């Protein structure tokens, strides 16, 4: 019995020392684990904005980090989920660096363009990072962020039409508040008078980089000047390299 008791006593002491050592090294390793986001880059193709965040991981601890899962959910101003992106790293060996991109895709077809092309807004981004230290301790960090959205056609306005020598001239202006989208393409106009009769149509090629304004006049071919009224409706369509939208009906005059 005495031998068994002595053996149990020693086993307990050794196990306690091992547990304390393990806890200390896990905490030290967790404190020496760094994860940073680099400068994001935005690309655009087939109606999808892809924001690429370089993920810089530095594991200078004593244990590997496994099952690293980074998930980003984008929610629009009405609470609709518009994008979910996940980056998974099965294993980050100890004393190693790693670089990986976390891509957040935002399809314009998922957005209410009537709102997001013309109004500045905010997206709510739910960010969640989960990982396992030493295959024993799981850590999950979640936070909410606000990502501002700048409208590419902010304050789009059509002025009063003037007529000279068979040509109608309509002043158009807007501001491109977007950080991701350049407005490069054609704006098409069709003008109807207050009796809903077509007056004329025209097209203008524009190239408005992000964070810049636009103000110009669009010339319309008018077939019958007698149809011109002081007010009416304009059907505006946008056909750009990044998005197509329209026709949108706006009053003029």
């Amino acid at each position, binding site marked *: 019995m005495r031998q068994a008791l002595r053996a149990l006593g020693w086993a307990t002491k050794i*196990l306690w020392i091992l547990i304390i050592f393990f806890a200390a090294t896990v905490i030290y390793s967790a404190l020496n684990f760094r994860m940073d986001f680099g400068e994001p880059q935005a690309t655009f193709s087939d109606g999808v904005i892809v924001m690429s965040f370089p993920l810089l991981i530095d594991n200078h601890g004593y244990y590997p980090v496994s099952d690293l899962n980074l998930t980003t959910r984008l929610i629009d101003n009405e609470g609709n989920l518009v994008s979910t992106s996940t980056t998974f790293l099965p294993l980050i060996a100890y004393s190693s660096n790693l670089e990986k991109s976390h891509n957040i895709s935002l399809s314009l077809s998922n957005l209410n363009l009537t709102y997001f092309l013309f109004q500045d807004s905010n997206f709510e981004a739910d960010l969640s990072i989960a990982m396992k230290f030493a295959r024993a301790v799981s850590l*999950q960090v979640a936070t909410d962020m606000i990502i501002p959205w700048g409208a590419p056609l902010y304050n789009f306005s059509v002025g009063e039409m003037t007529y000279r020598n068979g040509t109608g001239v309509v002043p158009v202006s807007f501001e491109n508040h977007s950080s991701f989208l350049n407005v490069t393409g054609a704006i098409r106009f069709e003008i109807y008078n207050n009796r809903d009769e077509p007056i004329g149509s025209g097209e203008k090629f524009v190239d408005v980089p992000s964070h810049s304004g636009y103000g110009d006049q669009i010339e319309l071919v008018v077939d019958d000047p007698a149809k011109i009224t002081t007010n009416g409706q304009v059907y505006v369509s946008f056909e750009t390299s990044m998005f197509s939208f329209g026709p949108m009906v706006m009053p003029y005059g």
Partner: protein
Amino acid sequence: MADTGNRREGLLRKMAPRVFKASLWGFVTFLMYYIPYQLLVLPMLMFPEFLSFKVQPIFYNFIALAVFFAVAIQLFSGTTLQHGLGVARALILMTYLIYALNGGILTLTPNIGAEAFTIVIDFKAFLMMIILVSLLSLAKSILQTINFLASEKESSSSPDT
């Protein structure tokens, strides 16, 4: 009168080394838990936002319990109560750890700057290791009790006594 005085003196002589030993053990136990705790927690104090779940009261209560039992066990050393207290210590510290550490899942909600974070730490596997070692201590205490009672009975039924 002289008999009472002698008895009191004898009791004091018997108790004084015990009290001294118990105090010493209490102090050693305090250091044994407090130093590793400081080593583990000091790096975390660099991030006070993360310590919103009141880690200090949890550990101070744990250390207080451990010191109390260390002192009590030494005070009653050589009696059945010493072993009974050993069993109680193993059971109470195990239960306290499970309760205080929320079964191995801690949820923190610190605010860093304007951002609100939710941090969930799942260390059930680690807590399980602690529980297993505590069970080993419990088994040892139970065996010590049985051993003590058996040797008591042996010595009382021995013809020499």
